[in-house]
């Protein structure tokens, strides 16, 4: 499950080509062949630039996910008013009755 922790040297990354079609699939954006070409080139260039951080030794450095140091920001378990359904469904690209409607879901989508 934890494929994210795969250890990988950043030095090896610069030689990697982004599999732009795979990434676009994950991001759910259809790309034209032309875009695959162009974005592939541009993202490759950008990666060359960002790879400069591989020079820094960060082994003992903690990661900063957020600059705020707050902890335990929690709300009381209280019910608050909802939006009314008319407003909610008026935004829908397609509604049917009291529901949002979408085209068929292929099981693989889950």
């Amino acid at each position: 499950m934890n494929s994210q922790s795969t250890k990988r040297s950043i030095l090896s990354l610069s030689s990697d080509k982004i599999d732009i079609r795979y990434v676009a699939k994950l991001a759910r954006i259809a790309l034209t062949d032309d875009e695959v070409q162009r974005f592939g080139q541009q993202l490759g260039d950008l990666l060359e630039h960002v790879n400069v951080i591989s020079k820094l030794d960060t082994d003992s450095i903690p990661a900063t996910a957020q600059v705020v140091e707050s902890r335990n920001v929690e709300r009381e378990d209280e019910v608050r008013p909802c939006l009314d359904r008319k407003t909610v469904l008026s935004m829908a690209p397609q509604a049917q009755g009291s529901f949002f409607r979408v085209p068929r879901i292929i099981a693989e989508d889950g």
Partner: protein
Amino acid sequence: MSNIESAHAVGGPQPSAGGRGAEGAAPSKWEAVIGIECHVELKTNSKMFCGCANEFGGEPNTKVCPVCLALPGALPVANRVAIEHMIAAGLAFDAQIPEFSKFDRKNYFYPDMPKDYQISQFDMPLTQGGVVRYWLEDGTMKECRLTRIHLEEDTGKSTHSGSGDGRIAGSSHSLIDFNRAGVPLMECVSEPEIHNADEAVGYLEALKRTFVQLGVSDVKMEEGSLRCDANVSIRPVGAKELGTKAEIKNMNSFRSVHRAIESEIARQIEIVESGGRVVQETRGWDEVTGTTHTMRSKEQAHDYRYFPDPDLVPVEVDRATVERIRKDMPELPPARFARYHCEFKLSVAQATQLVENAPLAEYFDACVNASKNAQQSVNFVLGDLSRLANESDTPVYESPVKPQHVAELITLVESNTINSKIAKELVGRMWKGEGAPKSIVEKEGLAQTSDPGAIDGFIDGVLAANEKSVADYKGGKTNVMGFLVGQVMKASRGKANPALVQERMKEKLT
């Protein structure tokens, strides 16, 4: 004292290794290995990250706000009670509650998931480890370790149309209701330490009982507040490595979990025994055909791109909170079951019935405390009192019959002050609010009489009025004795000591 400790202290039957081998499911050559993942909706007033009501059902798309509908610009704020429920759930199973925990985003697209990522927990869940102790119908205690319980949010609900049967396969479109989106959900992941369908159901029942008793969830499978998937594989008995697993989905009752696991084990055994190989896949359970079928065959490794949710700050669980929650915890099902079954010698059915009804169990405990007689207490509580409760729709513990009354009644029976018939009558009168049994007995002279003179008087009268029966008895039809004793009891308005009546009657007839 912690309830977990008391469970050990009672010294109930030790969990036995291995399965009991449900009939037909796991013949001796093969051992099934099962891990269960459960999603359980937490019982809170409001959703996990917004103030919309956490209620089942209701008009579609009426319990939504900018946050749970993922409108642009909306942000989540965590529900304090949901986090405390998680800590309670973890403590109930002896899990570790790490001091530092955080929320992560699990990224994937699905139309009923508003943000197209789920706020979940990846590497730092609120609880880690733990063990679920449960028992089987024969009273055998079992254990299954938990990997973790983490907190996340539920999705909305899709209804699939156009396929004729509501299934996703073959549907032309889907309709979505987001009322459920954002409801707090705990995901309980077990280690693969379950070996047959009975154990799976026992494990699930233990989760359910515990969550209900803690008040952290209603666990209504029919309302979808408990949903589970099972990872099933088989291996030759004695083998170390795990076989290829299939993940079974769509089981919507404990009964279907049982049936689905048995069917899946049988399917895998058949494949392997006929020289085939089990393929890793997701299989759906079909209630009607009683079989599992392929849902997703080419299992792609999901790339969920987990990362810490920058909209939420970490949770640091302070030890004082943990201790407060621990202190407030009731006696939990495994400990209570062990006490009832092993110490009080109640039957598995009696003990289970009480364990599943915590207030009734507490009432029962008060009766035992006052009477020091568990057997008689359980007879009254699960017998006459529960019958009256059913008839009147009033729980025993809310009736006018107090545990001290029950104890008094037991004393009256034990001291032979009243007989069981009077006891039954007294229960009914106490239920109507007539007060303590002793005072009723005294007021109305219902005490049993064991005075030989008085009893002889009743017997003589009965024998005189039933000459034919006396003759029958003397002619060898000894079964008329019951009738004659009954007549004496009737004449004494139930007060005569039945044992004494029997004894004197025998003497007079021979």
